[in-house]
């Protein structure tokens, strides 16, 4: 009797708690929603000014991204590398630094994974695949390590060094697939990786691969790292107040290097996932700018790994639906890069969002906040 009495309200409380949490997180993401709406509004003006119908274009993105099972599969495929680079950016941001080199780390990670993928044959998949993924992580970590050490030991500005390294990564990998590792034919690419290094496809016809699962695991691991481990605590402390962190006995140089190495490794696994799961070989310039998508996604996701999952799916939808839009309406694909940039600009200044909500027609979104 007593037990029953205790159980029922508990269940209701749990439900209420969940509901409040959902409402709360929705309310917390109002600024991000306003940023996205405002970006699409300006995008519509750009489309109109260049002679395209925004309704048709956005409609094509929507149906392309979610219209059928194929669209959904491609949306999640596109969301995968974006989630990895978002996690990479947010990890560096949490320790108060900017890793603008996720694009290069992704490329090098993909390249290292491809090299391991094509170098061995006849290896069991449960050794070959993890080895190739690890190689990707190592490649990305290597590229994260260089700017981190230059920052920690010499004070070199990480924004400049990470950007410059991305160009170096692009050209050096391009050299390899144009000369020593070039597959026969006219395309700048390697030969396919061995089947034992392939990430399995999850949905027939689409390119959705096991990389998506790995990306979700990476998001969960990032939450764990930041919330439950000492190094995560140190990283967050450094981000909030480096001087105080130093005074509290945290080795900030070590923390900085670790944060960048892990950040690079995550982006590197993202590149490996693209190569082993989607392309199955390294193709010159395979990334259409996933590194920058990741930056936008991390910001839209509220610099939170779980929020980044939602935002990555949104940006994946824009990328995969964008291809449909380009084919069916002829709107240049670059409109989606404009949308992405506008989102970043709006999120850059939270006060701007507040200003828009006050002055613009978004009052209905501001209830009780």
């Amino acid at each position: 009797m007593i037990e029953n009495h205790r159980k029922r309200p508990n269940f209701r409380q749990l439900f209420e708690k969940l509901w409040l949490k959902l409402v709360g997180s929705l309310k917390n993401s109002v600024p991000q929603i306003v940023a996205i709406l405002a970006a699409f509004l300006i995008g519509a003006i750009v489309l109109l000014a260049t002679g395209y119908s925004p309704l048709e274009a956005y409609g094509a993105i929507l149906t392309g991204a979610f219209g059928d099972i194929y669209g959904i599969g491609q949306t999640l495929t596109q969301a995968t590398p974006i989630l990895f680079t978002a996690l990479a950016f947010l990890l560096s941001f949490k320790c108060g630094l900017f890793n603008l080199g996720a694009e290069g780390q992704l490329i090098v990670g993909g390249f290292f994974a491809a090299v391991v993928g094509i170098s061995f044959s006849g290896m069991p998949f449960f050794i070959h695949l993890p080895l190739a993924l690890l190689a990707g992580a190592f490649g990305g970590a290597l590229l994260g390590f260089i700017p981190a050490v230059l920052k920690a030991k010499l004070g070199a500005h990480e924004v400049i060094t990470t950007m410059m390294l991305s160009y170096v990564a692009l050209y050096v990998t391009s050299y390899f697939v144009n000369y020593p590792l070039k597959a026969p034919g006219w395309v700048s690419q390697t030969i396919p990786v061995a089947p034992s290094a392939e990430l399995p496809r999850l949905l027939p016809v689409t390119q959705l691969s096991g990389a998506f699962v790995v990306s979700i695991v990476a998001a969960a691991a990032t939450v764990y790292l930041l919330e439950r481990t000492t190094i995560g605590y140190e990283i967050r402390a450094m981000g909030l107040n480096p001087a105080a962190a130093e005074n509290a006995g945290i080795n900030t140089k070590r923390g900085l290097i670790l944060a960048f190495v892990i950040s690079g490794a995550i982006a590197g696994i993202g590149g490996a996932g693209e190569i082993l799961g989607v392309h199955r070989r390294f193709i010159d310039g395979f990334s259409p700018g996933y590194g920058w998508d990741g930056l936008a996604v991390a910001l839209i996701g509220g610099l939170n790994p779980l929020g980044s999952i939602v935002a990555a799916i949104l940006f994946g939808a824009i990328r995969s639906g964008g291809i449909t839009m380009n084919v069916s309406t002829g709107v240049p694909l670059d409109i989606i890069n404009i949308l992405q940039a506008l989102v970043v600009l709006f999120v850059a200044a939270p006060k701007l969002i507040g200003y828009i909500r006050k002055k613009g027609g978004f009052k209905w979104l501001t209830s009780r906040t």
Partner: protein
Amino acid sequence: MVNITDIVNAGLFAASLRMATPLVFASIGGIFSERVGIVNIALEGMMLTGAFSGVLATFATGNPWIGVLASVLAGGLLGYLHAILTVKFSGNQIISGTGINLLALGATAYLCQAVWGSRGASQSVQGLEAISIPLINDIPFLGEVIGNQTPLVYLSILVAILSYILLFKTPGGLRIRAVGEHPAAADTTGVDVYRTKYLCLILSGMLAGLGGAFLSLGHLSLFVLGMTGGRGFIALAAMIIGGWTPFGALGASFLFGFADALQIRLQSVGILPSQIVLTLPYILTIVVVAVFARKRLPPSDYKPYEKD
């Protein structure tokens, strides 16, 4: 067999001067921004937009000087946008700058397709003609290097001199530096901190746009997708190792311009694969930023200033 004089000759130095020019404009643009306490990593996007706008306006009017004007205006507009986001709304300077870079990349690619139907490059337009300076032109080596360049090359050196005078020899320059070093103190002495920041950021964007105009109108006479190729960031490096002074930036820009010219030269000689040669300016930038990082202190603290 490649002869050393095929690579190192007066032509190489003339090319260095040309490749340094966009960096001179952009790095001095960076100085005006950082001197009032705002990091301007948007230089890259401002240059790219300037390069595109210059070609677009020249394509429409047939006059490259109207193109240059359009480049300056477009760059200034982006400087204004950076100011609105970082000064008025105290936004994050790096994120705002990244957003502007992404916007420039996306918008120029989109418009290039909308106007010329090709994503990769625009049509060729009338570029800026080189002018030859009569007497200097006749000096053997020097004449070849500096005697026959587009007017923007000479303008870049003039801009460095004028910027030095403005920043360090006039009351206005003192105000600019005060706003960056101690905005609250500048405010109490009657300097309009916000206005100074806005003006300097617009000027910064205009100079970067001019650098972009040189790339498209003074160099190739067409727009190519992503043609700045990270030069905005190299300009930032030039600004840092130049100690945030116009002449320092000028000197550093020549160093990077030389690396760029050498890289182009080595590509055409063909002793190394172009992809490897192309990394030269970027690796040099990393090395130089790392080596000089400790030597200089930035002139301001880059925090948004808010009046009580």
